[in-house]
């Protein structure tokens, strides 16, 4: 059974939802921001919310927390790490993922179900998907416009590190190249703005997000 760790910062909002979602593909526990001990988990989720209020810049302060040092070591050792929304921002700020997230083009918060295309189906979080498969997953953020300098962007595309793309016409924030999620060099760290943990039950809108958790669970058991 896969054991998931979900990081909890002051200001996290979706950590309990992430625990619920992970629990559908294993066991899940919260990891407190001020502790370095990852308690031997197999996979880590850095969840959404507004860590430390996001007053300076989304994710800017959370990256310096004790737990993030341990997450960096875990990632360097090849452990699967999924950053969702604010968690994506934190991983970018921490340098574990390339690029940065900027305020949405239309400046406003947007909460909306979007179609997301799986571009790279070989990461630990997308193995259960087909390349080109479309998942219905909600976004909810005000700072989600993906940015990377042109040469970096070109490299990401070339190396297949763009993992998720908003389906044509569905880009909710003005992200460059319709990018919704990317991976690190090694492919074990993935971040995305859409919230797969909010797409695990058809009653709440969709169960497509389950595939991300199921992918990593299979991997950890294998």
């Amino acid at each position, binding site marked *: 059974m896969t054991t998931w760790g979900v990081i909890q910062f002051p200001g996290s909002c979706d950590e309990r939802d992430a625990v619920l979602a992970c629990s559908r593909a294993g066991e899940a526990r919260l990891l407190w921001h001020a502790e370095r001990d990852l308690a031997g988990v197999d996979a880590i989720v850095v969840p959404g919310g507004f860590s430390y209020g996001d007053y*300076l*810049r989304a994710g*800017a*302060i959370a990256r*310096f927390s004790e737990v993030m040092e341990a997450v960096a070591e875990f990632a360097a050792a090849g452990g699967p790490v999924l950053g969702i929304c604010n968690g994506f921002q934190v991983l970018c*700020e921490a340098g574990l993922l390339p*690029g*940065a997230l*900027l*305020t*949405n*083009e*239309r*400046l406003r918060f947007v909460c909306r179900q979007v179609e997301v295309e799986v571009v790279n189906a070989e990461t630990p979080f997308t193995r259960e998907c087909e390349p080109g498969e479309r998942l219905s997953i909600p976004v909810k953020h005000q700072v989600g*416009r993906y*940015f*990377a*300098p042109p040469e970096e962007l070109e490299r990401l595309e070339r190396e297949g590190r763009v993992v998720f793309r908003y389906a044509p016409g569905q880009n909710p924030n*003005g992200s460059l190249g319709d990018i919704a999620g990317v991976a690190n060099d090694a492919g074990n760290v993935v971040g995305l703005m859409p919230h797969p943990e909010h797409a695990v039950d058809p009653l709440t809108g969709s169960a497509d997000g389950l595939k991300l958790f199921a992918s990593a669970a299979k991997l950890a058991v294998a």
Partner: protein
Amino acid sequence: MLIRPKEGILDPQGKAVERALPALGFDDVSSVRIGRLVELEADSLERLPELCEKLLANPLIEDFEIQPVQAPSPDA
């Protein structure tokens, strides 16, 4: 310390303000960029660039500028 979006980065806040200006009669104003101002007291300027790079600004998307208001006095 002034922190502003890097040249070439889309700044929707700045654009929104810029679009509102003609209606107010400011036809001759352009290139609005919106950033942040961080005020702090420090004994020395030496490590402030590091502080900006590490925390206050994201060098990927933001430039910063340090403007000492008053030179720190040795006995401060």
